[in-house]
């Protein structure tokens, strides 16, 4: 049971922890430098051994503390969730210790958080982008990133050199079948893009 006794014993002698709220589940604030120590304790002694989620929240450019990394843990014994919030100390180049040595599940979650928010996790075994491609220059889930996205150069320079385009056009842009939308019905009906011929006008050679 997650009751008063549990919370008191968890907080006892650990000044780096603070109770944030208890609305949907017990939420604790943890100081970054004690994160590994605390997550090991949760896993080994408090039965919170299933790391279900790790993500971050961007509080915006003007906030005093911009990035908060949020962990959700589940205990099969207590049948309860526990949320741990860690505020990133530096707004411009946020760095936190990686907990992938404690929870292997954190490996991909941390990669995703790095990919989307640009939060670095020190000591991470393989910290590289996971959803976007390796050379992608932005962090899409930051609040200043526009919904429409930003055009970026092609990942493949050799293709860019030939096409002169910044962004790779989709292989069949406009769909595999296109319609001119004007003229006689037989001419305007959708057809494959490279077939500009109809029953009445001959196929150009």
């Amino acid at each position, binding site marked *: 049971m997650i009751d008063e006794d549990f919370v008191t014993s968890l907080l006892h002698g650990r000044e780096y922890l603070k109770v944030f709220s208890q609305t949907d589940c017990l939420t604790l604030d943890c100081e970054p430098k004690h994160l590994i120590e605390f997550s090991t304790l949760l896993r080994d002694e408090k039965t919170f051994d299933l790391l*279900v989620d790790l993500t971050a*929240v961007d509080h915006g450019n003007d906030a005093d503390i911009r990035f908060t990394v949020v962990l959700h843990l589940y205990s099969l014994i207590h049948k309860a969730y526990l949320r741990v919030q860690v505020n990133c100390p530096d707004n411009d180049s946020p760095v936190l210790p990686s907990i992938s040595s404690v929870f292997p599940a954190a*490996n*991909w979650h941390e990669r995703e958080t790095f990919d989307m928010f640009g939060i670095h996790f020190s000591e991470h075994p393989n910290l590289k982008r996971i*959803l976007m491609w390796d050379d992608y220059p932005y962090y*899409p889930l930051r609040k200043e990133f526009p*919904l429409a996205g930003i055009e970026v150069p092609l990942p493949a320079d050799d293709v860019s050199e030939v096409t002169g385009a910044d962004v790779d056009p989709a292989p069949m842009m406009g769909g595999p079948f296109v319609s001119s939308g004007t003229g006689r019905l037989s001419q305007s009906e959708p057809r494959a893009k490279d077939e500009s011929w109809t029953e009445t006008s001959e196929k150009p050679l």
Partner: protein
Amino acid sequence: MSKTVTEVQIGDIGSQAASHMDSERMSLNVGPSHPTTHGVLRLMMELDGDLITRCEPVLGYLHRGDEKIAENMTYNQFVPYTDRLDYLAPLANNVAYAITVEKLAGVTLPERCEAIRVLICEMARISSHLLGMGVFGMDAGAWTPFMYTFTEREKLYTLFEELTGARFTTSFTRIGGVARDIPDGWLTKVEKFVDELPKAIDEVEKLLTRNRIFLDRTEGIGTISAEDAIAYGITGPNLRASGVDLDLRKDKPYSGYEKYEFDVPIGTKGDCYDRYLIRIEEVRQSILIIKQVIATMPGGLWYADDAKKIFAPPKDKIMSSMEELIQNFMIVTEGPQVPPGQIYFEAENPKGALGFYLVSKGGGVPYRLKIRAPSFCNLSILEKLVPGHMLSDITVILGSLDFVMGECDR
């Protein structure tokens, strides 16, 4: 399958070959577009002969930025996007998302609405497992079971169409209820379907469960220990196959699951065969739940009547009453009003625990919505699981994990 052979030395099978045996590694690239990978998953592997020595999954080929999109639209507008997460069980995603927002908004739902949601969740589970089992059999070389499961799944889709108007992308829930009441006579059709389904499942079992070839290909392959499964955050049937008793429908009941009796199948070995057996049994349990829901379907409303700022009123009232017209206008233009706060909710979906972490600063638009996709977590074990297996086991392992890239890449 596109093969990249680092160095091919044909016709050099003499004395040199033996020395090459130890050092020669071939890098093999499976996917991103390959039938084995059930979507756009790419595996970069290193082979020693037929033995896989290294495997690195590459994701992101189906990344749409759903979480960014969610921050830019009202709560109800995001419902169609949840269809496209695990697109093999859209109804279950709809329900999980709606419950998350409702929990933060503090809406309590009438019993009928909860019963409808349990019903559609279990139907979604059956539909997802039918596909999972059928395709798994196909991955192991058995084509026929797939025909049986797909025939049944087709019937389910007809039922979905009658209920929601769409076969695939259902978008059936609204924040504070469901889109409409169940049509007349629909429950009878569902009952008829679940009465006939066990026959088809039996057929599949006859073809697979004691099939020598199938057993040889799946038993002892891709074994995940309980410790590993927990450490890598695996959930759902894959976790239970490893012998861990975690089913959120039992442990953290939502939407009135506590009212129905059902068993949670648990595996012993955690290999591909166990994962198949778990899915078979879960379908049978889902049938039991559906029968109970139909037998005890409560009357009343299918939406929260007292949630004035959350659920848009019925159409006939909008046209006749000023207050309801204003209410409808506000909900459509500004979105359902959700108080500031944060919530994390997980539902037991066919693929595992689908979680939504929602941060609200008030108003009708989420400030941050994180989607915890079960397929994403389930796949993270591949790096550890696959090395040591033969190349031909890849299809079976991937098939048994039953993942969906739409949800993995979001």
